[in-house]
């Protein structure tokens, strides 16, 4: 098997703009599933709405393309019915943190075994470049022509605070690190959150005069540093990357099975 055997080739070339970071996350995920030797029929991907959410159309897994912000509740239902599936839930920053913010924190709290990937391009790509809860102060967007006055969420801290048992951050520049982190996130039993900082050259890059895909990737290279590195210690302005949380807690589907057993008088 090769990574290209895991796609629905008839839909390629895909719909994303030239240099869109969502494509690199798809690429990495396919390499990971291929390397881990996971059976595509054991894989399920549920997404909401957004450019990022289009990803579920391209993988030859069980897939569901649902409603904006509602990928996690849909995935939760499927996972409870078929706990043996490897569930992947890619979401945009708007999808996961704005309209879907409530679902996000409660999925973290429940610790249901799935991998949530936040494709953070700091903008609403699909609807034309409105700012999102991850844009941050000072960003230019179609809805913030004089720059945003909103502070952003730290998706990692939010996931951690809400109880996710695996939390990591990387970028579309760090492709090897991305593959390593996605592998660990999928292996982890419990709710895994991986924030991937991705580039939207069409809206974020252009609006903020930060250049195209290459310049945005260089920005992620130059403005992030691994957790525990000297580079990070010396410059507090850098965004930390790596695995922030990796711990065990009772998993929701297993706990639910115990309830069923109890109700049936088997325990």
């Amino acid at each position, binding site marked *: 098997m*090769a*990574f*290209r055997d895991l*796609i629905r080739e008839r839909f*390629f*070339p*895909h719909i*994303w*703009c*030239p*240099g*869109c*970071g*969502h*494509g*690199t996350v*798809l*690429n*990495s995920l*396919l*390499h990971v599933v291929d390397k881990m030797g996971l059976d595509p029929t054991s894989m399920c991907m549920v997404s909401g709405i957004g450019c990022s959410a289009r990803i579920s159309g391209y993988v030859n897994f069980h897939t569901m393309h649902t409603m904006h912000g509602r990928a996690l509740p849909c995935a939760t239902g499927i996972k409870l019915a078929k706990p043996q599936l490897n569930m992947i839930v890619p979401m945009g920053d708007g999808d996961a943190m704005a309209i879907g913010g409530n679902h996000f924190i409660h999925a973290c709290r429940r610790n249901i075994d799935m991998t949530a990937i936040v494709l953070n391009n700091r903008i609403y790509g699909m609807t034309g470049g409105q700012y999102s809860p991850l844009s941050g102060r000072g960003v230019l967007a179609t809805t913030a022509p004089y720059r945003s006055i909103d502070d952003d969420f730290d998706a990692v801290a939010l996931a951690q605070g809400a109880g996710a048992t695996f939390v990591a951050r990387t970028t579309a*520049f*760090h*492709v*090897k*690190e991305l*593959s390593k982190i996605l592998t660990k996130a999928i292996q982890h039993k419990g709710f895994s959150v991986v924030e991937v900082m991705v580039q939207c*050259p069409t809206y974020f890059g252009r609006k903020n005069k930060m250049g*195209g*895909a*290459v310049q945005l*990737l*260089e920005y992620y*290279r130059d403005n992030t540093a691994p957790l525990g590195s000297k580079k990070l210690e010396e410059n507090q302005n850098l965004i930390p990357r790596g695995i922030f949380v990796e711990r065990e807690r009772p998993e929701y589907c297993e706990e639910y099975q115990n309830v069923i057993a109890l109700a049936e008088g088997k325990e």
Partner: protein
Amino acid sequence: MEAVEINVLWCKGCGVCVAFCPKKALSLVGEKAQVDPELCIGCGMCELYCPDLAIVVNKPTKKNEKVTEEGLS
């Protein structure tokens, strides 16, 4: 079989592979990526970077492990 196969129907000419190939073995010709086999070490980075899944590196070399996102170490 070519060491680096580029599907020109899928390549959108974004230049990401060109910018981050550690050996500068790739270039854009008429908005499509092209490889110089003389320079390529088969590290496989371009295959991972391409947002359009347009590149396959056949038989990535052992040098693969030494290459990081920041280039050759």
